[in-house]
């Protein structure tokens, strides 16, 4: 039997990964820091027509696009004359397991089946677990979902407990761990023990699966309003949602559409902290994943992450937990759509953004998720109170404090966003490289220009600036 200590399992990481993903990532490595992203996506995935066919086999996709007329009308009551963009919502909760994650899982699981694996494993505390479980059963594969679920007192986050229930309901095994990034260690042990497929959120298949979402938005938008949307807002965590959607938009020809990432602001809370774990009301779609994954995408569980948000993101907006809960209430009350709060993160920013834009502009919010026990605002706020978080009614801009206070807006005029400076994000990306003492070669600048969605001259300027700052820190 192989050594099961943390160090020796982590040392076997590369071979375990290679056997479990079915992708030879080494083939795509280029000189310097670069790799051939487009070739990886092309060779190891499927064209959009094939993706849509795979998804239709398991009932995934073709979700409705709904105009939120009452919310738009409410926004216009507080906008300047002529302002208040139209808001549309892609109701992804109508996918088989209740979220857009079915798109991601469908292609991964189909690939696992095609490659002859007997089962799949996914490391996820989110909706992706239920999606992989549901898709696995449809393809007659075994499924194990590994979750980070409890703190050291054995207290489970209600939303994650609900996802465990859903996974179990589909017939998956659920392994629930306490807080810590060593979940990855156990995940590797399981891959090694079972020989199952790694249904990572970050493989080319997983990302290609979301391209259909962007593609459908363009088709539906043209059918409904005769043009492409001006803005598409995507909740941003690991980067897959935004990357896949943006790629789909481009494939469908929407090259001018602005792609905006949105996260819940959880600054100040440490994601690997046992103490902080149950002091947050959002388990994903927050800055704790959003920022680290944007500035260092290859921190994921595969050698090269196919989710590369900064390649596609035009703007990055942050909202607070209390605002998202308020908007979740609003979606139910004004549009008759009761959906899960985490899925309404980008809708929250859409409301603030719509207020500033002319009436003839259109915003598409590209997801919703299912709701129910554990996943309702009331369930999360009850849990927050039990963990010593104060719930107040007031302006979130003044009162929100992650881990301490959740502020429910007094009215819709208090819904606002904080804008993250994109140049700062690009600087942070470069800082990650410089910190690892990587010497850049000429071809790296081309690669970085694509990675950071900015021209080579700007990349060079940023590298110079960041290097000088890092040197002075040392």
């Amino acid at each position, binding site marked *: 039997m192989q050594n099961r*200590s*943390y160090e020796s399992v982590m040392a076997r990481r590369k071979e375990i990964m290679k056997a479990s993903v079915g992708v030879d990532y080494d083939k795509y490595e280029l000189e310097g820091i670069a790799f051939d992203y487009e070739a990886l996506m092309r060779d190891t995935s499927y064209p959009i027509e094939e993706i849509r066919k795979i998804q239709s086999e398991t009932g995934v996709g073709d979700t409705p696009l709904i105009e939120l007329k*009452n919310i738009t*009308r409410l926004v216009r*009551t507080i906008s300047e004359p002529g302002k208040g963009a139209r808001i549309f919502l892609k109701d992804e909760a109508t996918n088989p397991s209740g979220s857009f994650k079915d798109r991601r899982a469908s292609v991964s699981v189909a690939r696992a089946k095609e490659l002859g694996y007997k*089962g799949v494993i996914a490391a996820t505390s989110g909706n992706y677990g239920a999606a992989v479980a549901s898709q696995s059963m449809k393809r007659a594969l*075994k*499924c*194990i979902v590994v979750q980070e*679920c*409890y703190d*050291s007192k*054995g207290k*489970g986050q*209600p939303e994650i*407990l*609900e996802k*465990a*229930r859903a996974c*179990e309901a589909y*017939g*998956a*095994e*659920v*392994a*629930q*761990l*306490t*807080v*810590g*990034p*060593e979940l990855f*260690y*156990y995940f590797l042990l399981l891959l090694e*023990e*079972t020989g199952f497929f790694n249904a990572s959120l970050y493989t080319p298949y997983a990302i290609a699966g979301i391209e259909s979402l962007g593609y459908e938005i363009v088709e539906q938008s043209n059918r409904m309003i005769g043009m492409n949307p001006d803005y598409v807002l995507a909740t941003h965590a690991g980067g897959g949602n935004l990357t896949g959607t943006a790629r789909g938009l481009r494939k469908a020809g929407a090259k001018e559409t602005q792609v905006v990432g949105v996260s819940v602001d959880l600054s100040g809370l440490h994601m*690997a*902290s*046992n*103490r902080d774990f149950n002091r947050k009301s959002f388990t994903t779609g927050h800055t704790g994943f959003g920022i680290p994954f944007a500035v260092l995408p290859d921190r994921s569980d595969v050698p090269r992450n196919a989710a590369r948000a900064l390649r596609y993101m035009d703007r990055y907006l942050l909202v607070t937990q209390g605002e998202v*809960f*308020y908007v979740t*209430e609003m979606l*139910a*009350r004004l549009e008759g759509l009761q959906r899960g709060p985490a899925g309404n993160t980008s809708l929250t920013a859409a409301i603030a953004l719509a207020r500033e834009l002319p009436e003839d502009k259109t915003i598409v919010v590209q997801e919703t998720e299912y709701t129910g*026990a*554990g996943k*309702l*605002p*009331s*369930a999360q*706020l*009850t*849990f927050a*109170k039990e963990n010593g978080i104060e*719930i*107040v*009614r007031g302006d979130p801009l003044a009162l929100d404090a992650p881990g301490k206070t959740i502020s*429910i*807006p007094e009215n819709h005029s208090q819904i606002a966003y904080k804008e993250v400076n994109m140049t700062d994000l690009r600087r942070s990306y470069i800082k990650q490289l410089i910190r690892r003492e990587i010497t850049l070669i000429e071809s790296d600048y081309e690669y970085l220009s694509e990675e950071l969605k900015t021209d080579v001259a700007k990349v060079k300027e940023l590298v110079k600036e960041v290097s000088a700052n890092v040197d002075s820190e040392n």
Partner: protein
Amino acid sequence: MSAIKGQWVQIHRILLDIGERAPSVPEDTKNVPLELRIRGFLIEEKAEVGEMVTVETASGRRVHGKLEFVEPTHEHNFGDNIPELSEAGIELTRWLTGGDRDAE
């Protein structure tokens, strides 16, 4: 509490003890072990809570651990009434259904 062969149970085990945790984790996490909880059908004829047992999981794996719960249930729920939230909700409904001049 005891369980018999074939009963649905939850087991618990320590995966990494204090001192074995990854160097990167923050102090408060380093000071507690990494624990695993998993559910499955009991393999042994009979066992008491607290005893080391084996279960067969939904994916057919056999896993060892300390018996923690017999026939574990899902206890997460819809939560309590949250006054701040229900207040916000009724304000929105009133606006929608005629409490405001702007509404049609």
